[in-house]
């Protein structure tokens, strides 16, 4: 493992705290009706998100899924336009036309989430193709869950990335459940081992709540991609604390007894805080990161609150590059 600068370690914790604070606030806002529709939180999965996004360079690309607030935050997006988008404000990162399920922030290489499971995987693959053809040194990463690992388009994309040696990382966020369905009941074999069928390395990060473990694995895949050595499948074992979506109340208890509690004991933010303390970070400094993240989320909500809802005319913009073509 490469020795990381203290600034990088601090930034990792700050970004995990941002994601936690952002999603906890979003969850409350959904329940109070301040955010329309619903949201899917990454609470519990912060190490996996930040370990992966911080292994990417600023100019690199990524595509997300339905549980994707954390991805642009992890890649460095400012929180205000993301929160405004969740609320449906004109200042939202997608002008209020995407919402929680379709966040995208091209400024940080976020090519968009997808509400269709698996559907954004080939988008990242195409970004990797661009990098390859234009020879610009960028890499691309597709985030997808254990549910999407059973979509055919993943394997079409892995095959293309393999045969074309694309600078691509397929990152499976295995949070154990597709809504209420345990992954192992609908998934034959081990997801990361499927890489072998495509002649690419497959890595499983068992300690997916350890941000450094994820960072190391994804950094290796990024280095391989950037060197022209082709794609990698990385499966990260993680856990979602909340329900599939906020406000969802399931009558059945689909989780094993004690399972959630066991995962809570290895909370990624708590784990990393212990590590940082062992590296000489003071309690004040670590408390300060938490306060910073909470203040940033407060500011994001204030930004959203102060923003207007979009004018109706906005609904008729951006279908095509020219407005005349829209009927």
């Amino acid at each position, binding site marked *: 493992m490469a020795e990381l600068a203290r600034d990088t370690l601090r930034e990792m914790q700050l970004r995990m705290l941002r994601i936690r604070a952002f999603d906890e606030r979003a969850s409350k806002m959904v329940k109070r009706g301040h955010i329309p529709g619903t949201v899917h939180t990454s609470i519990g999965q912060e190490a996996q998100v930040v370990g992966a996004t911080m292994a990417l360079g600023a100019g690199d690309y990524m595509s997300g899924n339905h549980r994707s607030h954390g991805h642009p935050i992890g890649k460095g997006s400012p929180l205000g336009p993301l929160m405004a988008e969740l609320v449906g404000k004109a200042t939202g990162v997608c002008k209020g036309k995407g919402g929680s399920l379709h966040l995208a922030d091209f400024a940080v290489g976020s090519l968009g989430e997808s509400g269709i499971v698996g559907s954004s995987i*080939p*988008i990242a693959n195409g970004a990797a*193709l661009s990098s390859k053809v234009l020879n610009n040194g960028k890499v691309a990463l597709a985030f997808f869950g254990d549910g999407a690992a059973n979509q055919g388009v993943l394997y079409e994309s892995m*095959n293309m990335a393999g045969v074309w040696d694309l600078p691509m990382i397929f990152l499976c966020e295995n949070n154990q459940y597709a809504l209420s369905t345990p992954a192992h009941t609908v998934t034959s074999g081990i997801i990361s081992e499927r890489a072998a069928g495509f002649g690419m390395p497959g890595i499983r990060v068992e300690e997916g709540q350890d941000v450094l473990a994820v960072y190391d694995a994804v950094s290796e895949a990024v280095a391989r991609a950037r060197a022209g050595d082709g794609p990698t499948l990385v499966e990260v074992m993680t856990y979602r604390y909340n329900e599939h979506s906020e406000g969802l109340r399931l009558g059945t208890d689909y989780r094993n007894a004690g399972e959630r509690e066991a995962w809570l004991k290895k909370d990624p933010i708590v784990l990393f805080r212990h590590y940082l303390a062992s590296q000489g970070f003071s309690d004040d400094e670590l408390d300060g990161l938490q306060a910073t993240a909470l203040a940033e989320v407060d500011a994001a909500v204030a930004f959203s609150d102060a923003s207007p809802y979009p004018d109706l005319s906005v609904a008729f913009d951006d*279908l*095509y*590059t020219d407005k005349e*073509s829209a009927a």
Partner: protein
Amino acid sequence: MTVMSYLGAIGAAQREAMDADERVIIIGEDVEANVYGTTGGGKSRSDKGDFLQRYGKNRIRNTPISEEGIVGAAAGAAMTGLRPIVDLSYSSFLYMAMDQFVNQVAKNRYMFGGQASMPVVFRSAMFYGLNTGAHHSDRPYPMFMNVPGLKIIAPATPADAKGLLRSAVDSDDPILSFEACLLWSAKEDVDENEFWIPLGVARTAREGTDVTVVAISSSVPEAVAAAEELAREGVSVEVIDPRTLVPLDRDAILRSVAKTGRLVVAEPAHRTCGAAAEISALVAEEIFDSLKAPIIRVTAPDMQIPFSPSLEKQMYPTKATIAAAIRRVVDLPALQPVAAAV
């Protein structure tokens, strides 16, 4: 000017676009070997104009048979700096990639508030009329007309194929090009220099004053032939080819029907919710008072395409069925019983 076939004109437009802009690439099944005749000067690697020789494997890429993966990758590539032309060969293969067309290609720019541009062209051949059975004989453009965010061209002549494809490649929006195999061998004089036909501008294939026939794709030459036959009986028929179905040149259609007062719409697609239905509704909504007779659609019936040549040839609009429809709207007696396609 030089004589070009429809396929040759597509190849010429692709060559021009590849020469003009290094960001243009061609991906698809069998494009390296020029199987469909639009990525080379001939059938041999050594023939002059071979695309693989000329542009190399980086820009001319055979794909696996993975339509969903191909269409999605082309979308992602278009969002990040390339201008792909995707050769999907048969138009019925588009169904394999419906999620990518409908959920990503068409929606990304809008959903992301204009952050994405999608400069990509998806070409496919409508393989109907060639006795290939139901799986290969589709004319699926109307269902894509129902997806806001896609632009759709359906050229009917070599010159239109060349000029429209250049505009399509240069457009920053996603474009589906539906090319009828029945037109592949059509030939005419085409400007060998670069030219662009703007999207959304119809072509008047034949001027007339008594009836407007709006015809699409391979129905265009059938409509022109019907118009020539009717001209000998003193009926003056105007034939309008929209060429672009999205955006549709509404003004050209409305102007013509306002002048003639009669409308026949001919297309090879199914009847329900087809382009002909949309054009008929447009005219009925906008200039109902100009109509001197009911609108008639000449389309394929809402039926799958049978294999046997004796059955298939009756499924699409022909000179005879279009002429019969024209006779009806101008109150001429029918020459003979009209086949089921009307």
